[in-house]
């Protein structure tokens, strides 16, 4: 097994890395590029905490070989904010208390971001379906679903949305 030099396009920037063929995208992101936002939890595609975008579609970084990600536009949770300015979705997670321990949050954000790009006004059922591949053991999901729903369209009757103004 030989080391290979590849280029990965992550959050709009090319990164040259030397990897082994058996390195997953998640290994490279976390260990070689210090992009530790994406988390490893189960490592077998069940929990969703490693979710990143490849060409705009959410995928599991723990089940994607780095070799397979070479030609794709990769976006990680670090690429959601614009500099120091959080995205609407990130701010909504904070406002609605959708974060407790925070371990699932990067995956939740990436799955939700992909959904909102495809469908800017999703109903609750659509949101729950889109997040079905992400597991959270703290919040019971209600706040997370609310945060996603209200990120795109803040509600007048939601005290969390109001507090933002």
């Amino acid at each position, binding site marked *: *097994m030989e080391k*290979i030099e590849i280029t990965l396009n992550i959050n709009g920037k090319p990164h040259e890395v030397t990897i*082994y*063929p*058996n*390195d*997953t995208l998640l290994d490279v992101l976390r260990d070689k590029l210090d992009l530790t936002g994406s988390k490893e939890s189960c*490592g*077998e*595609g*069940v929990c*969703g905490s490693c*979710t990143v975008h*490849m060409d705009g*579609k*959410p*995928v*599991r970084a*723990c*089940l*994607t*070989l780095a*070799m*397979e990600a070479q030609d794709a536009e990769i976006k990680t949770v670090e690429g959601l904010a614009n500099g120091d300015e959080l995205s609407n979705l990130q701010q909504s997670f904070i406002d609605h208390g959708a974060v407790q321990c925070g371990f699932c949050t990067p*995956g939740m954000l*990436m*799955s939700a971001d*992909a959904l909102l790009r495809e469908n800017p006004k999703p109903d609750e059922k659509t949101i729950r*379906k*889109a997040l*079905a*591949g*992400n*597991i959270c053991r703290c919040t019971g999901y209600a706040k997370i679903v609310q945060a996603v729903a209200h990120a795109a369209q803040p509600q007048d009757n939601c005290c969390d949305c109001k507090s933002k103004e």
Partner: protein
Amino acid sequence: MLLPRFDYLDPKNLEEALDLLAVHKEDAKVLAGGTDLLVRMKKGLLTPKVLISLKSLNELSYIKEEAGCIKIGARTPLADIIASGPVQDNARALSQACEKVGAITMQHYRGTIGGNILQDNRCHHYNQSDFHRSGHQACHKNGGKTCYARENADRCNSTCQSDGSTALMALGAKLVLLSKGQERTVDLDNFYTADGIMPHDMEPHELLKEIIIPINGARSAYKRLAYRSAIDYPIVCAGVLVRPSDSQKDRIDEARIVVGAMGRAPLFLAQASSSLKGKKLDDTDAFKKAADASMDSAATFAVHNVGSTLEYRCSMISPLVLQGLKEAASEK
């Protein structure tokens, strides 16, 4: 979790891929989406020396209507199949089955229909970590002589939990397999070996090219039961098809009932299926009898090895088949 070591090969076209398969044979595994293969490799169930990636083989990713059939390339992502109009119109069971696989973020963009059909059989005594398996003697599937799923069994009783295969078998699909210089077409009905260790009748140097589903005016449905609605395998599932007669539109000319996640392969239940021939499309009593007959036949194959209790799984066959038949019959 680390993956074992392997060499990664990235053939640029189909011919090159078949050449590589012919050279490496059983040392190689084909990597499509990786959502099943890489999990098995991480658990140490598979340690191929070479992975042959289908990443560059866009020629294996298509859905087209041709000569009265729907042809689906083996590397087509599940998301494309779910979104396909022709599949929804003519092979609804497949569309429903693909929707149930994994979760949107997990399988639908990376996972492929070929990978779903060719996934290895599972058993909750076998699909475990190295550490778990090191706690007891190796089972048949792991190279030993014991079966933990059924006492004193002389062979492996692993279960085929593929959603796609169950739906496709109900639809009467065929598979096109390629090897260097050769191509063969096999009915999905005859693709299984009834051996839990090597469940598919496929040589190591062969590559699944496409899936052919006949368009014949049949209506179909897929129903499944799993612990969770996402990221889970079925503990019992049913694919059904009913084709109305050409002369009498309200009569069934052909029915196919397939029960999955019960045996080493999806089970096509010939007797229960043929009992529906000539029956009316709204004959609920006949559906109920066929569903009960399906349960009686399929339950004899069941082994307690994919979770839940055996009694519950078996007793749910009948309701799933009945729901499927009613839904398929009332389609359009």
